[in-house]
């Protein structure tokens, strides 16, 4: 019979193990290179140095990777929010011919895994001349079946009285969308924004395929370029990894409920 103490110990021990790679990553980013080989079993640096944090911006195009990630993740999140909410509004509040078909198509698309479209998308993006460009990275993700579906469900849950009142007053649909529905949807919109931003900030395969030149790569695809047969320097890559997770980590610690709720919502739908 497991006592409460045993459960607590197991849980905290597990948390330590799970967090270990992050702790090692940060600690390692302050280690001078020889220490990796001399003291592989010690966690903390013996003679810490912040040199890697300066080096990472100078010796690899890290600043460019960071910028690309911001533009890519931010661009997709913003654009997707606009397009998805517009479409969701139409599906939830308006009547039009082909409405049901549209909804079913959205559902079907949700079920197709990304790898199917990866190869033809590469071809299309290439034919449009958008390889190695922000257009090629962002526009194919401008809309998202998941976002449309999630927002539609959310909009359906908003009581109709407010928009009916506005309609009677002669407001256009777009005004209702902008002034009534959107303000009431802040939790769903911010959750979706976080979801999209996080997903694309961390995404690897898509930028790997669409960008081949270092100056267009995002953080994951860019940093891993320098990891191969000949590793540049361990602390440098670890510093890069630490900087990469920092924005999301800070966002997470500030808005934990949003992050976690977003995940739980996708589970319970």
């Amino acid at each position: 019979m497991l006592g409460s103490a045993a459960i607590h110990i197991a849980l905290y021990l597990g948390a330590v193990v799970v967090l270990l790679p992050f702790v090692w990553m940060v600690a390692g980013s302050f280690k001078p290179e020889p220490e990796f080989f001399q003291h592989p079993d010690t966690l903390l640096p013996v003679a810490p140095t912040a040199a890697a944090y300066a080096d990472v911006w100078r010796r690899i195009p890290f600043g460019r990777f960071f910028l690309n990630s911001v533009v890519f993740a931010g661009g997709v999140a913003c654009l997707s929010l606009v397009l998805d909410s517009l479409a969701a509004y139409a599906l939830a509040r308006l009547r039009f011919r082909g409405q049901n078909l549209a909804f079913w198509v959205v559902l079907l698309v949700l079920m197709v895994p990304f790898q199917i479209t990866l190869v033809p998308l590469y071809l299309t993006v290439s034919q449009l001349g958008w390889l190695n460009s922000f257009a090629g990275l962002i526009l194919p993700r401008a809309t998202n079946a998941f976002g449309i579906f999630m927002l539609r469900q959310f909009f359906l849950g908003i009581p109709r009285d407010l928009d009916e009142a506005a309609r009677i007053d002669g407001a256009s649909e777009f005004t209702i969308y902008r002034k009534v529905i959107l303000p009431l949807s802040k939790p769903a919109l911010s959750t979706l924004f976080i979801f999209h931003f996080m997903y694309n900030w961390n995404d690897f395969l898509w930028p790997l395929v669409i960008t081949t030149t270092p100056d267009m790569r995002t953080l994951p695809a860019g940093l891993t370029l320098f990891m191969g047969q000949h590793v540049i320097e361990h602390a440098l890559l670890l510093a890069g990894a630490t900087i990469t997770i920092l924005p999301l980590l800070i966002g997470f610690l500030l808005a934990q409920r949003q992050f976690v709720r977003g995940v739980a919502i996708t589970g319970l739908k």
Partner: protein
Amino acid sequence: MHRRLNPAYLFIAPSAVALIVFTIWPIVQAFWMSLHEWSFMAQERPFVGAGNYQELVGDPRFWNALRNTVVYTIVGGPFQIGLALLLAVALNGKIRGRAFLRSAYFIPVISSLAIMAIVWAFLFDPDIGLVSAWLAELGLPRIAWLREPGTAMLAVIVVGIWKTLGFNMVILLAGLQGIPAEHYEAAEIDGASRWQQFLHITIPGLRQTLLFVTVISVIASLQAFDQIYVMTRGGPLFSTETLVSYVYRQGFELFRLGYASAISWVLFLIIVVLAVFQLRFFRYREVD
């Protein structure tokens, strides 16, 4: 006022265009491409019908990728789900510092798998990594984890479990909180043990959530790519090459887009079959 155009079409137009151009049409294209020998640079793209699929069946490297993917899913899956379930059940009780613990297990979920795979690759390195160093202190040999076929697969599986554990845990926690406390109280009064409560209240109450977690875990495992590409590139000796890494190799290293498309369709088929099977399996269990 005579309205010409239903405004709904304006709302839905941008999304519709983007979806059609960048998702629906590519799906059609993917199927079309799989029926051709479609090399990126080549002038001719001969129609080969089922040729790519026939080649697939006779391609030992495809079967290797399939086997590796299945092994990855079957070995990792139970841990991804079972461990998450244990964690969720434990965290559902009276735990001091529950918020901290929940966040701690969740942090891998918000990190980039490809980037953390760099960190993990270092951790598994026999010369500089903690894993080897600490095992060596216990008197065990220093293994070059990522350079031996068996251990390399183990390593990428471990990373996969590490990444998804918190996600599954959070969803299962939410599901647990949906089970009414009275059920447990009534069972206590009836003298049921904790294990019996777990079997007869918790598990049935979690049925929907468990189904969801299992389905998405399996689908995600079947699509494993990031940590494999970064840590082993599918090696050593193709022992960690999964279906998606093979698609990447054929499509973006050998530029045989038609063949790569065929492989991705087979992957899709597997995903659909397994998902349907799981849904049926859970529905059958619901009867008893």
